[in-house]
């Protein structure tokens, strides 16, 4: 029993390798049926049904909207401040807040801020850059960026037990099965 206990703490998760997306999906469904909730799939291409099955929420669109609004305010605010508050120049009585000519810069700043938010937000939410990750030490994992589909049941799953996870995944059409050690 104590042996298993030690195993449990040294184990980052149990990783199964599948030949295609359909088998991966079956693997996920079996793991979910067995009560596992914390798992991650690794695929060579984006797969929406897998993401749907794993139930992820994505706050990125909201962040990008906020980024764009901030960009618009900064863009217009800067021009307003410069032309009306900081250095007003009266040119034949023309209005200082000549907003139509401020639109192009406001627009460009909106796009710039929104685009930067999209990229930096995506990286931040994904926890990237992170050059190393325990799953990289798994044998054959380099194929996740070629043609193989992986399912990892994570050690912090509330019902996680290395043996139990192993037994669950053993019953699926996997190509290989291994324990990923904790670094």
């Amino acid at each position, binding site marked *: 029993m104590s042996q298993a206990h030690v195993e449990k703490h040294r184990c980052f998760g149990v990783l199964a390798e599948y030949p295609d997306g359909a088998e991966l999906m079956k693997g996920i469904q079996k793991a979910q049926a067995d009560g596992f909730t914390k798992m991650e799939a690794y*695929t060579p291409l984006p797969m929406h049904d897998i993401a749907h099955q794993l139930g992820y929420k994505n706050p990125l669109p909201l962040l990008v909207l906020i980024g764009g609004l901030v960009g618009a305010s900064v863009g217009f605010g800067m021009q307003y401040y410069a032309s009306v508050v900081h250095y007003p120049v009266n040119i034949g009585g023309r209005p200082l807040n000549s907003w139509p000519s401020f639109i192009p810069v406001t627009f460009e700043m909106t796009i710039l801020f929104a685009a930067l938010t999209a990229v930096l937000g995506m990286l931040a939410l994904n926890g990237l850059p992170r050059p190393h990750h325990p799953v990289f030490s798994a044998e054959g994992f380099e194929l996740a960026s070629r043609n193989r589909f992986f399912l990892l049941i994570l050690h912090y799953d509330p019902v996680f037990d290395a043996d139990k996870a192993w037994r669950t995944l053993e019953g699926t059409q996997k190509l290989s099965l291994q324990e990923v050690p904790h670094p």
Partner: protein
Amino acid sequence: MSQAPQTSGEKPEFIAPGHTLSTVSDKITKIVLTRETPRGWYLGFGIAFLLLMVLVSSIGVLLLKGIGVWGINVPVGWGLAIINFVWWIGIGHAGTLISAILLLFRQDWRTSINRFAEAMTLFAVACAGIFPLLHVGRPWLAYWLLPYPNTMSLFPQFRSPLLWDVFAVSTYATVSALFWYVGLIPDLASLRDRAKSKPWKILYGIGAMGWRGATRHWERYETAYLLLAGLATPLVISVHTVVSFDFAVSVIPGWHATIMPPYFVAGAIYSGFAMVLTLAIPLRKIYGLEDFITVRHLQNMAKIVLATGMIVCYGYAMEAFFAWYSANPYEEAMITNRMTGPYAWSYWMLLACNAATPQLLWFKKVRSSTAWLFVIALIVNVGMWLERFVIVVTSLSRDYLPSSWDTYTPTKWDWGLYVGTFGLFLALLLLFIRFLPMISIFEMRTMVPAGDEAQKKEPHA
């Protein structure tokens, strides 16, 4: 040349049959990682390097002696520098169009050409940026164009199209670079996982930032990519619109016209697609990528060249029509001057290149022939350069008062700078082809039947 099989009556495919997830991954990574660099690459890089040296000398002479070494004079203050700027920026626009607008329209065929088209955008914008920067005269003070707190308490003129241009072009350069890099991340991970030598593993690993294809990451990645496409689409239109405002907001005959923004945007797409064809046709041949960049891709691009070419022709017709219909003597003088003045050769050559030549693309035989397409694309590139020459030079050299008229002849340093930017463009492009995947690997995976199936399968109950 092995072409996509063209069975009786059927359209050629966007990807040759028989490819799987592993074959597309291997074929594209192999070009970068294991395949020997073709001799043509060294030859091309040698030429690019020589041209790059021409650029360096032209800039050196310019900085030492000032812009007096150029042919610009008092009425023609905008010479080759602005012509080349607009030309390069326009070329860049096709890259964004392919990667962003075609993505939004779910045109899957863009997948095999978007990566190098995006790279083309980035490098074209880099070339474009050089010209206005040098044209300001004292480029070391170019930061004066930006709003920043300073002891003079001054801000730039926010009501000027030239300042809008600064914001538009710098935003465009930034967003293009982001879009390109984000698209590269999963492919850099593929290269990291395939690379044999440690230094390359580390370098690609740094670029990949630890990408591991986790579903959670893919979800956010795709959202970010789609949003970037959505943002880049209005951006690309705004950039060339703002570039056209540089002309349209002034009161020079031939510039002060409402047709300018749409006409400029269409012209940009037109020249950009011509440039994509110019690059894609030799590349697919040299690297044996006919399976991925098929005849059907070339046909589609040829159709876009034809369509945008017709819009540009409409622009030329409207310029002449406005001149007549407005009954404005200066507009009439402008169009007469274009047709019969000292620069009439450029106007008629422009019509030959941009209005007459693309009409050949109505023929399917021409659209399916790489040789024809290549030649037409080159002619269109020349034509679009001439268009900007006509707009800038004929209008400035003869505006209102005959006493202020003068002609403009570019000097060897004008030409040196222009030819030199080809060196910069080619050198960057060749380095990109050598060290990065020129076709998006992960998007190609979604094109093969297995990937397509894996992706589209509905969640089971």
